[in-house]
């Protein structure tokens, strides 16, 4: 019997196995609860992943070059630096900040009245990296030679730990999902074996009236597969609904304040119920075979 035929009802065989209220509810509930937890964990993992990526691309892909030089050399050095940057592989674009922009950056420290133009402030150049990024050490070497007053700041040391932490959180989420999956499989297997053991007498009666092992196993397997599918579908549905109803967290944070699935990620939770049913099918089938060949 393959996994799909486990979903085709067989009214005769389905009736001969007793309804077993609480084991049934236990399986449906377990599948639902675990699916619910899995959807939430998935949302968390995806959000952490999104965050890590966002930060990574927003930060690692931009860098600042600061040129401090005597007033008269400034334009020359700025131009050299820009040319050099444009030739560097991995640099998407490079642009010297305008005076107003520099003033805005300095405002928190000096107040709005700072005469940037009159000060020996360094010139800032904003660098956008390509996807692959540039080699900061190589760039530093070349700059040292050609633009002595330049200091390259890749922002790394400031936010790298945050990105790492988000990555770790994502990893933790996926590990938790795997764990939840394994736990669900084990629980369904144990529940199936418990149900088979509890129904030893039913199995004996069926054997005595000439039922084949495939017939008996089929009745149990079908039931557990369907229950797991139902439970996981309900749990996934509720989980997805809950995630969708979570407050978006507004513009401000962005960090984990929006757990909702984005775009194609909605496909992932939809995969849970069939996956759970497949696991239940395999687990019950092997459990049924073992129990049936064990009972004489």
């Amino acid at each position: 019997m393959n996994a799909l035929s486990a979903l085709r009802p067989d009214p005769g065989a389905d009736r001969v196995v007793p309804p077993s209220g609480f084991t049934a509810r236990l399986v449906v509930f377990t599948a639902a609860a675990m699916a619910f937890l899995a959807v939430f964990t998935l949302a968390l993992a995806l959000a952490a992943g999104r965050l890590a990526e966002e930060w990574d691309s927003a930060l690692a892909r931009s860098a600042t070059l600061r040129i401090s030089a005597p007033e008269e050399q400034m334009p020359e050095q700025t131009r050299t630096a820009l040319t050099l940057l444009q030739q560097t592989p991995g640099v998407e674009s490079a642009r010297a900040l305008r005076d107003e922009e520099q003033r805005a950056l300095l405002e928190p420290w000096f107040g709005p009245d700072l005469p940037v133009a009159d000060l020996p402030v360094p010139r800032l150049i904003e660098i956008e990296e390509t996807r692959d990024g540039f080699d900061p050490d190589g760039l530093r070497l070349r700059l040292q030679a050609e633009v002595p007053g330049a200091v390259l700041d890749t922002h790394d040391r400031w936010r790298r730990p945050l990105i790492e932490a988000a990555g770790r959180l994502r990893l933790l989420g996926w590990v938790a999902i795997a764990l939840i999956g394994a736990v669900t499989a084990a629980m369904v297997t144990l529940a199936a074996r418990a149900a088979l053991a509890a129904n030893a007498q039913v199995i004996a009666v069926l054997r005595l009236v000439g039922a084949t092992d495939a017939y008996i196993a089929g009745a149990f397997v079908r039931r557990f597969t369907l229950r797991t599918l139902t439970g996981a579908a309900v749990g996934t549905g509720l989980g997805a609904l809950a995630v969708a109803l979570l407050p978006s967290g507004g513009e401000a944070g962005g960090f984990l304040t929006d757990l909702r699935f984005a775009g194609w990620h909605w496909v992932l939770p939809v995969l849970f119920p069939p996956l759970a049913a497949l696991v239940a099918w395999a687990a019950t089938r092997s459990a049924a075979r073992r129990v049936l060949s064990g009972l004489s």
Partner: protein
Amino acid sequence: MIELENVAYGYGAKGDAPLLRDLSLTLAPGSFHFLTGPSGAGKTTFLKLCYGALKPTQGQLRLFGDDVAAMPRDGIALVRRRIGVVHQDCKFLDHLPVIDNIALPLTVSGQVMEDQQGNLDDLLTWVGLGARAHAFPPELSGGERQRAALARALILSPEVILADEPTGNVDWEMSQRLLHLLIALNGMGKTVMIATHDLMLIRAAKAQVQARVLRLSGGVLQAAGADL
């Protein structure tokens, strides 16, 4: 139909001497046998061998020509559809009404119950369970359970009927009635074997049918004494 050649059987746990030994017997089509012997002699064990629930520890046992030792489990399932068995402890599926329990052999062999409705109704009437058809097994009295078990054994029109103490819980009139049913089926060519302690039943049967009475004692099968 069922042929035993020097068959022996022992429940592993007992270790030493087998419970049954040197069993040689052929249940020919259309024959009628009684099996008797003291409690614990091995009558139920003997019947279990005959329907393939146990495999001989020695000797050869053939069911419908096939050696059970070589039979796969599904083969035994198919053989059971040709042998109707009334078990001494009459187990049922307690969540299904009596009528569905009686029709269970039909269900598991993939036959549709509706096609056999007439047959089913006749049987229920014969065993006096017409009024209790929709009760559940735990709601039956001891005798009603035995009669339901007999009906279940007969529903597939098996070639062989093995009945283990089928009248232990019913009154004398009912036991006569069930005996008549089995004799009638034997008259239609079915092979019948009844394990029982009830010597009055055996005497009553011998007055109506050509029956052989076997006695299990000390682990071996003998022809019964002249008093039966």
